[in-house]
């Protein structure tokens, strides 16, 4: 075992692979952060649609969620990677493909978080908002969503951890994230044990750190504590 290989390639692995600064359009965080933000926006729309009174809207949202939750993420990435070129006659860069696939896929899971977050707000809040004369949209924006968001924070952090780990799958289509960066270094150095153990530790530190943060949020937001 020779961990010198990590020291020699530390800058490439962390700057290019993890953060996304360098010659390649890559980076684990550069994919994960926009994906969670855009996924949350789409997920909120779908989660609200699942609670809508209009039957067709509810059914469409439910079908979206069930469909994406029944298919492996690798398959979803391949859809965009292979079908877009076949239909449009030109291929998209890895970053756009990966981002689209992650946003669409994560939105299905985030929609469920948003839905259960909204459903956790007591019914009396809706009645109180209606009684003060707020319209449906105003009620959602000013009363329900701010409270729901608070309840959702732990689940959102957990989902971000899942997403961060899932971004490693973008390496399959050649996106240079932390996993792909380790593969590139390994092709030259042939040190798989040291390299994959190292990136396992980097993923572990970021995931575990965030899961501790989620637990802290849960503790702080626990109403029974105050």
């Amino acid at each position, binding site marked *: 075992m020779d961990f010198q290989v990590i020291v020699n390639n530390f800058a490439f692995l962390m700057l290019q692979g993890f953060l996304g600064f360098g010659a390649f359009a890559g980076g684990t965080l550069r994919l994960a952060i926009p994906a969670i933000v855009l996924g949350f926006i789409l997920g909120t729309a779908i989660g609200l649609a699942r609670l809508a009174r209009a039957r067709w809207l509810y059914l469409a949202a439910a079908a979206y969620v069930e469909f994406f939750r029944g298919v492996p993420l690798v398959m979803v990435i391949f859809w965009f990677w292979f079908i877009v070129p076949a239909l449009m006659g030109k291929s998209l860069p890895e970053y756009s493909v990966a981002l689209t696939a992650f946003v669409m896929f994560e939105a299905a899971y985030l929609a469920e978080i948003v839905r259960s977050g909204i459903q956790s707000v007591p019914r009396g809040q809706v009645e109180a908002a209606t009684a003060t004369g707020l319209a449906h949209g105003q009620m959602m924006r000013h009363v329900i969503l701010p409270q729901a968001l608070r309840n959702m924070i732990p689940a959102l952090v957990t989902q971000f951890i899942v997403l961060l*780990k899932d971004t490693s799958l973008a390496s399959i289509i050649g996106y240079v994230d932390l996993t792909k960066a380790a593969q590139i270094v390994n092709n030259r150095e042939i040190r798989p044990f040291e390299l994959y153990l190292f990136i396992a530790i980097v993923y572990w530190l970021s995931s575990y750190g965030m899961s501790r943060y989620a637990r802290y949020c849960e503790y702080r937001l626990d109403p029974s504590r105050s």
Partner: protein
Amino acid sequence: MNYHFNWSVLWSGQTGAWLLHGVVMTLEISLVGWFIAAALGILSGALRTLPILPLRWLAAGYVEFFRNVPLLVWMFFWYFGVPPFLPQALQDWLLDHGAEFWAGAFALGVYHGARFSEVIRSGIGAIPKTQFEAAASTGLTTAQAYRLVILPIAFRLIVPPATNETLNLLKNSSVALTIGVAELTFQVRQIETYSAKAFEALAAGTVIYLVLCLTISAVMARIERQTAIPGMITRGNTGVS
């Protein structure tokens, strides 16, 4: 858009056999992985509820380390990183018996074992304390109490979350294509490569995954009804899932 659909690529020539082999391989690797995951999950999940601190730490360390690292990294680690350190006889055996399959199944099992562990632990946590006391007062040792009383109840409580985890394992088996296991997603990609019919190949794969998932959840819903403990569980009121 000038894409010409040709659904017959899915059954003409070898492609039908490829898809079939892919499904069989997906089920095989998932099954082997599932048994490893179940064994590790039950063991570590039960250890985490014992009052013996070093064992709890050991189990907690296993869970926290393995579930917080991407499955893909584990696949690479077990397939590329570990074999050079194994005894020569075992390396030779692996080379002759599909090293990628065993590395993939092992990675799936160890990763999902950590996730199963949490399910088992919450199942045991949902059992009333009186069950532990009753088991102890009838003279059972701790091991007997877990084997004869606690775990059987826990298994019946955790059917819904365990089903979820099983489906996750099945879907995650697709990650094994990265180390060359010829499972369903691998075959879909192969068909795409040979026929250049991306839409048909991916649609077939997607439908097969959906059918597998729906079948498993239908079977598990039946098992859930049959194994429900009367008076203890009502749908949506379990407190465990």
